[in-house]
């Protein structure tokens, strides 16, 4: 029966019913009933035309459902009968789709999903110029004075706020926001009120300094205090009153972070005091966003902003830019960009490329899974060729059979997709946890939502079609004549092995490439992690001491306070040594200088560059840098005269090659016109890494801490702990510092964490590639297992005959094994070639290895070979145990 399009079928039905009615009316008229009456009678007997049409339509629909259900049952029965195939296919799908879903959900949250605010399409971010998003406050105030630019404008900046009054710092994530922030983002407070322009005054508004906290902060840190409104909080030593709580779904303008406390922008003056940036024309720290008017487009806003730019810049000319640079300031073109997905986010820029690259890798893995399934499906279709050809001969339509095979594939996809969701949920959480570091935790909501479900469903459906359709079409192309040849279970030729073999070889090749990548990245990470630092990071605790902003002391007096803190903690049980320094390795601080040309006339300016740190006495011993010659940095230094400094071996090699450094007098290059400081080298120490974990240790000079020359608002106390410090050591230290110097704030950080934070990218890449390499191995193993199982299954008769004729089981294993070995071997060769070619691209990411490191390649090939061996061994050994007698009976 030809199926008609529904519209056509409906029209035909209508015609048919009308014709029936007409025939009935004719009958009545023939009997003498008047036409009108005849029509009425006929309609009554018809019993409702619309209802009749509905009933027929239902019948049409039911038909499809009946067939589908029958196909489904049939499919389930088949899948149950071949558990090996089913498990292999479902697992492959689950792993492949799951990995893609995991990466997608992270990419979606970080980059694609619009902000959870009302009408995110109306949100735009203003750029100061090009790709720079930061503004100065004077410029912002100019924007604020031009409300006609958009419906509302707001500025914000993120910062860590110390909520502790004194002593150990208690940092939370905070933001300074301007008065109309809540309007721009369309956020309604959960409790209380939002911040308003009237609060955004330098000394606080009518209610004094007020703050709004997030729901998470309220619940987690303040125990969902019912009396939260009106409660006072200490933010950076300033008392704020809580006036509102924002609802949980709103996490702020940046994807990947959440805020805890919002305070008005103008209160920055209260918090930073003399160091306030509110009037600094060269401090670029604010971001500006706008909500478009209903009739306004982003382009219009962009144009308006660009038009206002020259005026704004003129009004905010900074005083400390050189005359040459001023025109640049005036000309920087501002523009606006849609920000429905949040503005430029730190995480987005950090991880975008990495995540995209990972998506490509993971697609690779999915490809391998696809190859698996294609192979399995081909093998299965092959095995059913006889059954299918019989059905074709009996008159079943090819479309019908293809549909049935597709239903089976869909069942597999459904099962695989469901498992994939579970796997994705787990692995995306693990991945984000790995990417988060101590200082930059990534905070995104990874709960399942429709977008992720949709993605998974789409991938699963796509795979069903892609890898169910081709084998289905192929299988049903079987000529009906085949069925008449009474093949039964006789051994078949290997005609269809060609495609399957090719797919297997491709799979092994892809898998090898991934395993090689995993090997290279894992070894890179371990070499970096094991790299000698030049100091001993274990048991080294760094404590950052800070003066409160209101402090008025001069540098010398401050240093004295810091020394007092140091002296106080030396006697705490568990502390072996302590010393002060201006900075620590890998703290993102770089202090560089240049030696005066006259002191090293033969060297270029580049070679005269060196790095600087200022340390107190005993620092080298504390951090574990070896002293090679001369003296340590001394405690007391005369105010005048050259400073006594210590340099490292690299410094000597670079700047004083071949000379005895002790006693050498050097001068800093200084500013043009003014002579630089004089220095006398009194000691040499071993090389230590400064800020880069990959580069060699740079030439470094260590000044005595009194000569650091910078305002001493912060200093680092380096503490070497005993091997087994008492559990209370952290509290003891805190108590000691607070007792000796109660005005100081301090925060602890173990040095090992600081170092490992540097390795996040390498660690993540190593982790991911190892994970996906393992996944690829698993999939390849599964695929091999599945295909070999099937081929063995088809050859049961042949094997049974061989065994019956006296062949030894080991020869059966060899028979099967040789074929597999050839395929896997071919795949390895192809894979080695692929890896050789692809490795070039990874060069920059590696450390201590060439991209074509032979040991890694050989190792990867061996691992894959072993996996292949294991995967093929199981069905091969099972085959050799075939009960010959029962097989022959069946044939």
């Amino acid at each position, binding site marked *: *029966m030809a199926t008609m399009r529904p519209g056509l079928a409906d029209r*035909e*039905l209508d*015609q*048919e*019913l009308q*014709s*029936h009615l*007409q*025939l*009935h009316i*004719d009958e009545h008229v023939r009997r003498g009933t008047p036409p009108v009456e005849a029509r009425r009678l006929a309609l009554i*007997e*018809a*019993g*409702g*035309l619309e*209802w*009749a049409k*509905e*009933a*027929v339509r*239902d*019948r*049409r629909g039911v*038909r499809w459902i009946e067939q589908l259900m029958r196909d489904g049952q049939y499919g389930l029965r088949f899948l149950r009968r071949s558990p090996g195939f089913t498990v292999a296919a479902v697992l492959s799908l689950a792993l492949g789709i799951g990995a893609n879903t995991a990466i997608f959900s992270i990419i979606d949250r970080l980059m694609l999903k619009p902000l959870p605010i009302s009408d995110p399409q109306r949100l735009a971010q203003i750029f100061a110029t090009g790709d720079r998003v930061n503004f100065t406050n004077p410029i912002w105030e100019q924007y604020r004075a031009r409300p006609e630019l958009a419906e509302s404008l707001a500025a914000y900046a993120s910062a860590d706020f110390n909520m502790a009054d004194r002593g150990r710092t208690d940092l939370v994530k905070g933001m300074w926001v301007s008065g109309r922030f809540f309007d721009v983002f369309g956020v309604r407070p959960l409790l209380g009120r939002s911040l308003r322009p009237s609060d955004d005054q330098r000394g606080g508004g009518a209610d004094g300094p007020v703050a709004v906290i997030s729901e998470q902060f309220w619940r987690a840190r303040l125990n969902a205090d019912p009396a939260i409104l009106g409660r006072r909080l200490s933010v950076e030593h300033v008392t704020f009153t809580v006036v509102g709580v924002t609802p949980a779904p709103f996490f702020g303008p940046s994807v990947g972070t959440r805020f805890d406390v919002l305070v008005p922008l103008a209160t920055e003056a209260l918090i930073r005091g003399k160091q306030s940036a509110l009037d600094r024309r060269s401090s670029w720290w604010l971001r500006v966003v706008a909500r478009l008017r209903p009739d306004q487009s982003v382009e219009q806003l962009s144009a308006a902003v660009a038009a206002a730019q020259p005026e704004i810049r003129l009004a905010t000319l900074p005083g400390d830019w050189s005359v040459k640079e001023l025109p640049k300031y005036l000309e920087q073109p501002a523009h606006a960009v849609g920000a429905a997905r949040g503005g430029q986010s730190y995480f987005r820029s950090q991880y975008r490329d990495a995540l995209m690259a990972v998506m490509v890798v993971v697609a690779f893995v999915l490809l391998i899974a696809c190859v698996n399934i294609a192979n399995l499906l081909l093998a299965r279709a092959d095995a059913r060729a006889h059954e299918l050809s019989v059905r074709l001969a009996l008159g079943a339509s090819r479309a019908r059979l293809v549909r049935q095979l597709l239903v089976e594939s869909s069942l597999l996809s459904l099962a695989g997709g469901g498992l994939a969701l579970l796997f994705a949920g787990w692995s995306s959480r693990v991945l984000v946890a790995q990417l988060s570091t101590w200082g930059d935790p990534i905070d995104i909501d990874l709960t399942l939502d429709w977008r992720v479900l949709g993605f998974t469903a789409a991938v699963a459906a796509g795979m069903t079609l892609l890898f169910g359709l081709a084998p289905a079409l192929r299988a049903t192309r079987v000529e009906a004549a085949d069925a008449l040849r009474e093949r039964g279970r006789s051994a078949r030729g290997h005609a269809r092995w060609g495609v399957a073999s090719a797919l297997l070889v491709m799979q092994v090749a892809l898998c090898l490439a991934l395993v090689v990548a995993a090997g290279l990245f894992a070894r890179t990470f371990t070499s970096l992690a094991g790299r000698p630092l030049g100091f001993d990071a274990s048991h080294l605790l760094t404590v950052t001491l800070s003066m409160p902003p209101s402090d008025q002391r001069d540098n010398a007096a401050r240093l004295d306070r810091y020394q007092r803190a140091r002296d106080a903690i030396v006697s705490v049980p568990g502390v072996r040594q302590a010393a002060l320094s201006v900075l620590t390795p890998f703290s993102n601080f770089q202090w560089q200088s240049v030696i005066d040309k006259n002191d090293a006339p033969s060297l270029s300016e580049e070679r005269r560059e060196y790095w600087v740190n200022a340390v107190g006495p005993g620092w080298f011993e504390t951090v574990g840098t070896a002293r090679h010659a001369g003296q340590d940095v001394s405690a007391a230094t005369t105010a005048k005269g050259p400073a006594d400094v210590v340099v490292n071996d690299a410094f000597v090699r670079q700047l004083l090659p071949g000379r005895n450094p002790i006693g050498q007098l050097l001068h800093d290059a200084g500013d043009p016109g003014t002579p630089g400081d004089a220095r006398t080298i009194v000691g040499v120490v071993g090389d230590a890494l400064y800020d880069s974990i990959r580069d060699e240790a740079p030439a470094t000079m260590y000044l005595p801490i009194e000569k650091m020359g910078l305002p001493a608002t912060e200093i680092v106390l380096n503490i070497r702990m005993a091997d087994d410090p008492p559990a209370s050591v952290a509290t003891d230290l805190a108590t000691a510092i607070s007792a000796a110097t109660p005005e100081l704030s301090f925060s602890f950080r173990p040095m090992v964490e600081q170092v490992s934070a540097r390795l996040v990218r390498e660690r993540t890449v190593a982790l991911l590639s190892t994970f996906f390499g393992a996944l690829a191995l698993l999939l390849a193993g599964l695929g091999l297992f599945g295909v070999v199982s099937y081929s063995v299954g088809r050859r049961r008769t042949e094997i049974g005959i061989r065994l019956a004729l006296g062949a030894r089981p080991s020869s059966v294993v060899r028979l099967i094994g040789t074929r597999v070995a050839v395929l896997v071997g071919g795949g390895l060769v192809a894979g080695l070639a692929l890896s050789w070619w692809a490795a070039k691209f990874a060069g920059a990411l590696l450390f201590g290895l060439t991209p074509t490191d032979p040991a890694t390649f050989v190792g990867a090939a061996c691992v894959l070979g072993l996996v292949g061996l294991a995967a093929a061994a199981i069905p091969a050994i099972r085959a050799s145990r075939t009960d010959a007698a029962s097989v022959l009976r069946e044939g």
Partner: protein
Amino acid sequence: MGGKTDVWQGTLALMVLKTLEAMGPQHGYGIARRIEQTSGHRITLNYGTLYPALLKLEQEGAVTAEWGTSENNRKAKFYALTKDGRKQIARASREWAATTAIIERFMSPQQS
């Protein structure tokens, strides 16, 4: 199987097929009339009962349908029995006879 509708639809299908067997190709009106007559006017068929049944028979391949012209020159869709349809009649008749015979033994007084 087992609802009242299923049984009813099954017997209606048989009636339609038997009608076509006796009358040759016929349109829906003709089939309905004939069934009513044969049942001694104890059955009346409305369109909502008849046409889904005809569609099901067509889907199963027991009948084919083609547009043609009726006796009084009206356009109508004619249904004709197929080979499968005849087989279905034969099978259904056998089953029906067997069922009737068994029930008969229960209904009539005890006989050996």
